[in-house]
C-alpha cells in the first residue's frame, strides 16, 4: 500500500486544498509535502506508543494541535504559515517518537539488567 493511501481524510483534504491554492507552476506544493511528513510522523509516534508515555504524549498532543491549526489555515495568504505550522507539528511528532522509543528501550534495558542481576544471584552460591 502506498504511503499516501494511509493518510487520513483530513490530511488528504488539506493536501488537496494546498495543491489547488498554489500557483507555483505545477511543482509539488510545499503544504502537501509538509502535511504528508507531519501526518506520517504523528502516525509513527502513535505506533510506538507515544500516547502511553507521559513526556512523549505531550509532544504528540502538540503535534496534533499544530496539525489541526495548519488545517484551518486555508487562505492562499496563510500557506507559508501553514507550511511552518506543519513543520512544527512534524518536529513535535518526531520528538514524541524519539521519547517513546527512549522510554521503551529504557524499560527493556532495565529488564535486561534485572535479568542479569537475578542470574548473578543464581551463579553466586
Amino acid at each position: 500500500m502506498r504511503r499516501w493511501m494511509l493518510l487520513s481524510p483530513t490530511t488528504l483534504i488539506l493536501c488537496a486544498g494546498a495543491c489547488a491554492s498554489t500557483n507555483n507552476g505545477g511543482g509539488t506544493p510545499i503544504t502537501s509535502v509538509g502535511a504528508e511528513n507531519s501526518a506520517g510522523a504523528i502516525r509513527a509516534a502513535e505506533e510506538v506508543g507515544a500516547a502511553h508515555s507521559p513526556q512523549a504524549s505531550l509532544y504528540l498532543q502538540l503535534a496534533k494541535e499544530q496539525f489541526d491549526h495548519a488545517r484551518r489555515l486555508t487562505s492562499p495568504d496563510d500557506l507559508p504559515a501553514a507550511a511552518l505550522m506543519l513543520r512544527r507539528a512534524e518536529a513535535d511528532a518526531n520528538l514524541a517518537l524519539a521519547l517513546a522509543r527512549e522510554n521503551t528501550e529504557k524499560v527493556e534495558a532495565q529488564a535486561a539488567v534485572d535479568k542479569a542481576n537475578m542470574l548473578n544471584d543464581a551463579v553466586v552460591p
Partner: protein
Amino acid sequence: MKKTASASWMRSMRPALIGMLGAALVVTACATVTPVELINARTAYARASTGPAAQLKPAELHKAKGALDAAEASFVEEKGSQKTIDLAYIAERNVEVVESQTRSAQTAQTLEAAKRTYDDKQRALAKNTRAVLADTRVQLTEARKGQAQEAQQLGAEQAARAEANTKAAASEAKAAASDLRANEANDALAKLAAKEDARGQIITLSGGVLFRSNEADLLPAAQTKLDDVAAALISRGRPVVVEGYTDSKGSQSRNRDLSQQRADSVRSYLVLRGFPAEKIIAKGMGPDRPVADNTSAEGRANNRRVEIVVAKSDLPLK
C-alpha cells in the same frame, strides 16, 4: 572653491554624522529583541554539542545545527518574525530529538552490556552446572558401587544367616534327637529297674542270672540282659561304674577277687557292645554293702549281684 567648502562642511559635520549613525544603530538594536524560542534553541544546541551527542550522534547534531542556522538566518533577515519563531521552535525540537536519540544510544549500550553480562553469567552458570553434574555423576557412581557392595554384603549375610538357621535347625533337631535318646535311655533304664541314690542311677543285676557259682564268665542268658543294658548306657552316654558284690561265705580275699573278676567281665562285655572304655570302670566290692541278710540262702542270693552305677553328670565316677 566649492570642493573646498564641501570638504570643510563634511569635516565639520563628521562628529554629528557619526553620532546620528550610532543613534540609529542603538535604536535598531533596541527594536530587535531575540525571540525566546531562538534563545531556547541556542541553549539546547550548546548543551547538546558539548554533551555525549557530539560523539554518539554527530550527523543528527549537524542536521539540528542546520535547522538552528536557518532560524538564525531568518532572525538576521526578519528579526523576530513568526517565521523566525517557528524555525527556532523547530530547531529546538530537532536538538531535543538528537538528545533523546543520544540517550537511547546510551541505553542501547547499557542493554548490550547487560546482555553480555547475562550471557557471561549464563555461561558461568552452565559451566558450574556441568561441574556439579559431573560431580554428582561421580557421587552417583560411587553410591551405586557402594549399593552393589552393600547388596553383595547383604546377600552374603543372608546366606550366612540362612546357613546359621540351617545349622541351628540341625542343632535343634540334633538336640531334640538327643533329648529323645535321653528320654529313651531313661525309659530303658527305668525298664531295667534302675533306682536312684546319691551317686546316680543304679542298675542291679542278680549274680545268679549272670554267672555260675564261683565263676566269672557270663552266662549266655546274661548276655541278652546285658545287651539291653549296653543299649541304654550308650544312649545315656554318662560315665559308669560296674561294681561286683559277693555274699559273705568264703574268704574275704577270694570274694574280692571274684567280685572284681565278675565286674571286669561285665565291663568288657559292655565295651564290646560299644560303650566307650574310657567312661567305664570296674570295682570288686566283695561282701561289702550287703542288701540282704547273709544268714539265709535267699539273702545271700540277693547279695550276689552286680550294680551298674550311672553318673548324674558327665564327670567320671570314682
